[in-house]
């Protein structure tokens, strides 16, 4: 154990944080055995104070971690296409990041002080378990800080495209290949501690692979800059994974005995059951959130823009941000499903509390927010079509999409049982359930409509993409790359649906505690999945035969029929006859949807690549109300993050560490939904005001730099004129 004095010396620049760290690192796991001590400051409710600080800190952290993910991607696109506007956009994104970073770190310090000050026993225990990891956590902050500043301040310094010498390029290539080999070996379990498959995949795909790819693309200084950006993301992701492992440990403790004493290894505690599912969910959430916060920035700038040029720039910035966010939003429900399944695997009590207990109505509110997100996304795309010459050809579809969305939204948020007054119950004939609406509140109906919402949004996106395109381009003229990608997409789709079909054919009813005569219900779904595989194969063949639009229509129609119509109805039969199988039906729906999205997107990319255009996109020619949609998206996703945080944290009930350390404080109960909305609203308001202030500060710096650059440019010109 490191002494306080030694630690203070080594971390002198961050004296306050270091003192805190050294103090807590002295703690031991034995604290778990002592009665919990709770403290208050200024007579405030400690739990609410921690809740507020944690939420605001998480908003900032999500922004700081989410933005670099797509800033680097956009910079890479700019470098590949030699299009300076992408590079400028990536730089603008990063400039927003740099001002928020210091605040995030300061909030982190405040949050940590509050935790250690108000919940000393609990935090002492956590420190006792994770003290080794806490060192790593602190060191990773240095890594993130240095890479972020190098990435931002080194932007121009490392912008040269002059290639390095052949030898230097070879060194990076060799290093890249070595890293790639290491990635594969690690992924296959060749080295590293024993771990779950999802943790191994997470680390291989988000740490090893990006580093390998980054090394392989280094050919010039720009490549080095992109590599630094990748390192920044690796450091940020690792920080997030570590913090998530603590949150996961509180929900699914491993490596400790029932009294909390560490009996296993720190690695076991770190790699608890929920650590990686939470990290995957948060990763996607951060990306969507980061994209939308930047989108909100662009929207505000657009609303206040004075010139057409400014409007065009911020319109484009908002569009790219929204696209990033939607790309992360679409897989988010799948990540949520995976997390939910793992919550059930840890504890059925926790799972049931989530879906049917204290949080069942919180999920109704969440349904309102998620439904709003999809409707707003669609609205933004539709208004965006006004800037596309030729898109008016597709306006007729919008009313049908809107109709489908509204009906789906209404079903999506219908509760199963209605809290009614006695008079209302009397008017309904004495039943708690509405005779018709009760079906809308059940899982089969909800699963059907959420998938219809996803399909409809995807359809809007397809219409947007082809707005100004005259004709589709024959796939056969697009070379082997196009054919290869479409075939690969088809193979992925067949694999996704096919492997699950095989699973269902082999599944025994006894595995779900069902009698043997329920096997036919499994087989119906398996055959349905096989029909989807067949549709995917036919779609690929049609696309290769230059009938791409027909292929897309066919696959989307089959998917809509299977997932929405057939399973929407058949789900009720399953619920009645083989209720435990219902969750497998939901998985089959998700798999068919994702398979459809993969194949149709792959075909669409090549179907309109290089197609003749009616006219160029007129950036900036979009109604101002579209920007309010973009803003509303940001506000709603922020509220939703707060709401989901409440559910995740609240699932533990009256346990600090589920099953190991009880919460014996006066605040040991689940707050009401109204309390939740109050706390989340306060956090959202404070975050939005703070981030707006920071963007304003960033704007001052940018203006100052622009004036300096202008003056610098004018001075030599003046000298030249004098000469």
């Amino acid at each position, binding site marked *: 154990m490191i002494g306080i004095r030694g630690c203070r010396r080594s971390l002198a620049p961050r004296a306050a944080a270091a003192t805190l760290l050294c103090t807590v690192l002295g703690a031991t796991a034995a604290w778990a055995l002592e009665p919990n001590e709770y403290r208050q400051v200024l007579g405030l409710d400690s739990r609410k104070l921690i809740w507020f600080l944690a939420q605001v800190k998480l908003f900032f952290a999500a922004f700081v971690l989410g933005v670099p993910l797509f800033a680097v991607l956009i910079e890479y696109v700019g470098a590949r296409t030699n299009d300076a506007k992408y590079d400028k956009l990536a730089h603008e994104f990063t400039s927003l990041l740099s001002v928020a970073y210091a605040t995030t770190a300061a909030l982190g310090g405040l949050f940590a002080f509050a935790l250690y000050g108000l919940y000393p026993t609990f935090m002492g225990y956590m420190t006792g378990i994770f003290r080794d990891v806490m060192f790593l956590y602190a060191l990773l902050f240095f890594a993130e800080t240095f890479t972020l500043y190098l990435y931002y301040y080194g932007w121009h310094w490392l912008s040269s495209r002059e290639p390095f010498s052949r030898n230097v390029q070879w060194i990076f290539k060799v290093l890249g290949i070595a890293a790639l080999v290491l990635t594969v070996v690690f992924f296959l379990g060749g080295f590293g501690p024993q771990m779950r498959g999802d943790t191994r995949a997470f680390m291989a795909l988000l740490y090893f692979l990006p580093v390998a790819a980054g090394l392989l693309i280094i050919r010039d200084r720009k490549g080095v800059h992109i590599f630094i950006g990748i390192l920044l993301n690796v450091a940020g992701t690792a920080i997030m994974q570590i913090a998530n492992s603590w949150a996961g440990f509180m929900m699914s403790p491993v490596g*400790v005995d029932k009294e909390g004493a560490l009996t296993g290894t720190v690695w076991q505690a770190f790699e608890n059951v929920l650590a990686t599912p939470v990290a995957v969910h948060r990763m996607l959430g951060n990306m969507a959130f980061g994209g939308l916060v930047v989108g909100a920035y662009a929207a505000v700038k657009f609303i206040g823009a004075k010139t057409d040029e400014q409007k065009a720039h911020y319109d484009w910035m908002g569009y790219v941000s929204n696209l990033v966010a939607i790309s992360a939003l679409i897989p988010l429900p799948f990540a949520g499903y995976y997390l939910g399944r793992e919550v059930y695997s840890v504890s059925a009590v926790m799972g049931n509390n989530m879906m049917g207990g204290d949080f069942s109505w919180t999920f109704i509110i969440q349904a309102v927010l998620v439904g709003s997100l999809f409707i707003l996304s669609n609205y933004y795309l539709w208004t965006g079509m006004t800037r596309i010459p030729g898109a008016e050809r597709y306006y007729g579809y919008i009313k049908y999409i809107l109709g489908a969305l509204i009906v789906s939204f209404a079903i999506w948020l219908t509760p199963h*049982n209605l809290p009614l007054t006695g008079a209302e119950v009397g008017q309904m004939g004495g039943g708690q359930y509405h005779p018709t609406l009760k079906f809308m509140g059940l899982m089969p109906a909800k699963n059907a409509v959420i998938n219809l919402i996803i399909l409809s949004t995807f359809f809007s996106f397809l219409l947007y993409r082809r707005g100004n395109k005259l004709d589709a381009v024959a796939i056969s003229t697009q070379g082997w790359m196009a054919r290869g990608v479409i075939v690969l997409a088809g193979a992925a789709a067949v694999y996704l649906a096919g492997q699950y079909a095989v699973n269902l054919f082999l599944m025994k009813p006894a595995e779900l505690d069902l009698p043997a005569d329920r096997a036919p219900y499994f087989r119906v779904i398996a055959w349905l999945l096989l029909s989807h595989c067949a549709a995917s194969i036919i779609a690929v063949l049609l696309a290769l035969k230059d009938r791409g639009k027909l292929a897309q229509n066919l696959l989307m129609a089959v998917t809509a029929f299977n997932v929405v119509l057939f399973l929407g109805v058949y789900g009720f039969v399953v619920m009645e006859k083989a*209720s435990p199988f219902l969750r497998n039906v939901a998985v089959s729906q998700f798999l068919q949807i994702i398979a459809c999205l993969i194949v149709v997107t792959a075909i669409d990319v090549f179907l309109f690549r290089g197609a003749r255009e009616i006219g160029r996109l007129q950036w900036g020619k979009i109604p101002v109300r579209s920007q309010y949609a973009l*803003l509303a998206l940001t506000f709603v996703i922020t509220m939703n993050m707060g709401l989901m945080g409440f559910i995740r944290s609240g699932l533990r009930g009256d346990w600090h560490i589920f099953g190991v350390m009880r919460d014996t404080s006066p605040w040991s109960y689940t707050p009401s939904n109204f309390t939740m909305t109050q706390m989340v609203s306060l956090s959202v308001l404070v975050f939005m*005001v703070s981030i707006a202030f920071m963007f304003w500060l960033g704007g001052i710096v940018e203006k100052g730099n622009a004036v300096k650059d202008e003056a610098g440019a004018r001075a030599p010109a003046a000298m030249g004129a004098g000469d």
Partner: protein
Amino acid sequence: MSSAVGKVFGFLLLLLATFLWIGQAVTALTGGEKAAASAVEISPEGGESIFWGKGRCFTCHSMGDRGSAVRGPNQGVFGENFPLPIGARAAERAKERSQKTGQTYTATDYLVESLAEPGAYVVEGYKNEMAIVYAPPIALNLKEVKAVIAYLQSQGGELDLESLEKPNEVSKKFFAKMAAAQAAGGGDPSAGEQVYASNCASCHVIKGKGGKIGPELSSVAGKGAKYIEDSILRPAKSITPGFETWTLTDKAGRKTIGLKTADTASEVEITKANGEKVRVAKADIKELDQDKDASVMPDNLNEAMTVKDLQDVLAYMMLQKSE
């Protein structure tokens, strides 16, 4: 730009106000936060408060039209599948249970069994996934369990509090199981049996079944939960006499580590941790030492078990009492 910022914050406040209104409306409809339940009596009223509160029964079971959960069987009259409320249904289920087990079950026995061993007789069409209500995180005590049973009895059945105060032989066995689990800090003995089968049964005997490398555990409950927990997590801390670890080195330098299971005039038998028996003639032995700091039992069982596994296996161990 300042007017743009003003408009945007006005818009934000409007959305937040809507969000607050939704939260307020939902809470007004569904009720606010519930403070921790106070102690209850063994009565239908006490059981009702637990069913719809601390016991979290409502997250899986509805009671007729009350509640919305469908994961577990409805406990009231509901649709074709549930024409009888649980109090009356329990009597029917008890008859079926008597036929299946050969023991005479009363309605109360059936209800007690449903809470003590929910997987024993699952209602057709439902999964064996009911939580163990006397284990964390729910952790009802025996009084609370009895109150819930009284509440279920009162749903169309005969309220029989005496059968809970003075249980018959069938119920007594189930109450003993719950009491043992609570003594072990809460845990599911049935799940613990599975954990035991996977990790322990190859070396230990319970009621005549299992390996003989480790001590018999048929009456281990008498040693107390703390001792058992220590033995699982730190096996070398307290080794049962007769199960010390020996290291035998023969004259060729080969080492064999395990239990000394035979020691005759001519040879010594060492049984290794994997059950393999090695016999070495005394004439060939160079050294035979007892290692007091080591146990044949693996010291990494904690790596194979989660907290829940440990709690479950402890609960199972606490059931192992001499007959």
